[in-house]
Structures are given as structure tokens and as C-alpha cells.
């Protein structure tokens, strides 16, 4: 039997150290994604013609993926609620639903990119498309990483182990949702 890492549960700062660590990760990610998004906004404002390039992205596909992520955030927070109530099985079920949302998001994104690349809109087509693939790609990597961690946490939660981690992966997942909330209007709506 493996030892329980004490740092995930103890608290020297008013909140469990594991949760503090996730907030540190989120603070760092704000700089990463924030930097990318603000660079995009500055260039977009300086290059009016980017609107023509942005017109080729599908608002409906972006909206569908937004709905998927908002719904997966709901299942993640319901998993957190179940974990707080000590119901590991329900928490695991909610995390599996969230991971399914992540899978759906990535599949839609893959189909979307296949369509765009087949029509000649690649990462080297223009600076707009460079930003588009970089921002959406970096976000998709976070979605994939989150889904993998979620499945690992769900496996333990199913056996009522490490239920505090359900909240931690949920926090990360809500941040991934937040990033998409801003990527959606920037890449899919502002045309």
C-alpha cells in the first residue's frame, strides 16, 4: 500500500496545501494564457484585416465546445459536492462524465482543425492562424492533461480514497473552462 503524501492534506496557510498548490498553478497559468491572449488582442487591434481571417472559423462549433466545457464544469463541481459528502462513487461518476466532456471537446476540435487544414488554413498561413492554432492547441493540451488526471483521481475516488483531490482537479478544470470562455469570443465571434 502506498503512503499518503502528507502535503496534500496538511495546512500551514489556512487552506490544505494541495489546494494552495493548485491555486499557484492557476496563478502561473494566468500569466501563460493571459500573455497569449493579450498578445493576440494587441495584434488584432493593430491589424484590422485579421477579421477576414477570423471569418473562416465556425461560431457554431466554438459555441458547441463552450457548451461542452460549461457542462463539464458543472459535473466537476457536482463531483466536488459528492466528495465533500463522502460519496466517492458518485464523485467518481461525475469525474468520468467530466472526462467524457473533455473527450468530446478534443474530438470536435480535431474535426474542426482537420476541416480548416484541408482548406489551407494552417499554422503558417498568416499570423492570425498562428495565434489561433497556438492558443487553441495549448488549451487543448490542458484539456487532455486534465482528463488524464481526472481519470486517475476518479479511480481512487471510486474506492473512497483521496476524496480531497476531487476538488483539486475540479479547480484546475474550472480554470481550463475560464480560458475557453475568453478564447471563444476572441477566436470565433469577433469577426
Amino acid at each position, binding site marked *: 500500500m502506498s503512503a499518503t503524501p502528507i502535503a496534500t492534506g496538511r495546512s500551514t496557510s489556512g*487552506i490544505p496545501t494541495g489546494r494552495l498548490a493548485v491555486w499557484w498553478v492557476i496563478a502561473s497559468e494566468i500569466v501563460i494564457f493571459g500573455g497569449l491572449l493579450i498578445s493576440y488582442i494587441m495584434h488584432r487591434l493593430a491589424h484590422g484585416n485579421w477579421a477576414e481571417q477570423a471569418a473562416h472559423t465556425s*461560431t457554431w462549433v466554438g459555441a458547441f465546445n463552450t457548451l461542452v466545457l460549461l457542462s463539464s464544469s458543472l459535473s466537476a463541481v457536482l463531483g466536488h459536492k459528492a466528495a465533500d459528502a463522502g460519496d466517492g462513487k458518485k464523485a467518481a461518476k461525475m469525474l468520468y462524465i467530466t472526462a467524457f466532456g473533455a473527450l468530446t471537446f478534443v474530438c470536435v476540435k480535431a474535426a474542426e482543425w482537420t476541416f480548416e487544414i484541408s482548406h489551407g488554413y494552417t499554422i503558417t498561413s498568416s499570423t492570425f492562424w498562428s495565434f489561433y492554432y497556438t492558443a487553441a492547441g495549448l488549451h487543448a493540451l490542458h484539456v487532455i492533461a486534465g482528463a488524464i488526471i481526472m481519470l486517475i483521481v476518479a479511480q481512487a475516488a471510486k474506492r473512497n480514497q483521496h476524496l480531497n483531490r476531487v476538488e483539486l482537479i475540479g479547480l484546475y478544470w474550472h480554470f481550463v473552462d475560464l480560458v475557453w470562455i475568453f478564447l471563444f469570443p476572441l477566436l470565433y465571434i469577433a469577426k
Partner: protein
Amino acid sequence: MSEEVHDTHHGNYVKIWAILVVLLAVSVVGPMFEIRVVTLVTAFGVAIVKAYLVIKHFMHINHTPRFIPYLVVTCLVFMLLFFAAVAPDVMNDTGSGWEKPAWVAEEKAWAAGGGSAGDQHPQP
């Protein structure tokens, strides 16, 4: 303190989700009117409201120690300061004692002239 400590306050998450979905619909429909102000408000204003709802109700920011929001806002502010400093370089063609290299203007002209998918950038 053990890992059993939980200080979150759970609310009606389905209701929050429903509001978020309605806001999503607004952000999709609003720009269809093709009025700049309406687009800005419905797309970006609504995005800020959605983010607020997620941070408040799903991430429970109100129920974390105060230094957590300070930590997050500090990162945000420093990032904005950095970009405020470099913004003139990106958004202006000339400034006090500097001007952009010629290839930037060439690229702009190329893009304005219909540089399209599959074409390559003019090389610096």
C-alpha cells in the same frame, strides 16, 4: 489539519450552469446584429460575467483565504503591466527614437492585399 477539512459552501450549481448557458446563447446571438457596441457587450462583456460566475460559484473564491485572490490578481496585474509596456511597440509604427523595420510594413501590405490561406508570409 487533516485532508477531511472542507470549507466550501455548495449552492445550486444547476441554476448557475443554466445561467451560463443562457449567457452563451446571448454571446452567440448578439454579434449577429453586426452592431459594434452590441458585439463588444454581448461577446466580451458576457464573457467577463461568465468568468465571474465560474470563479465565484464553481471555484468558490469567496471561501478561500484572502491571499489567494491577491495572488491571482497580482499575477494578472504584473502581466498587464508588462503588456502595457510593450503595447506601443506592437500597435504603433513609429515612436520616440525608433521605427519598425521595413518588413513589417511589407507584411501589412501583403495581408491588406489579400494574403490568403496557403500563402506564405513575406520573409523578414
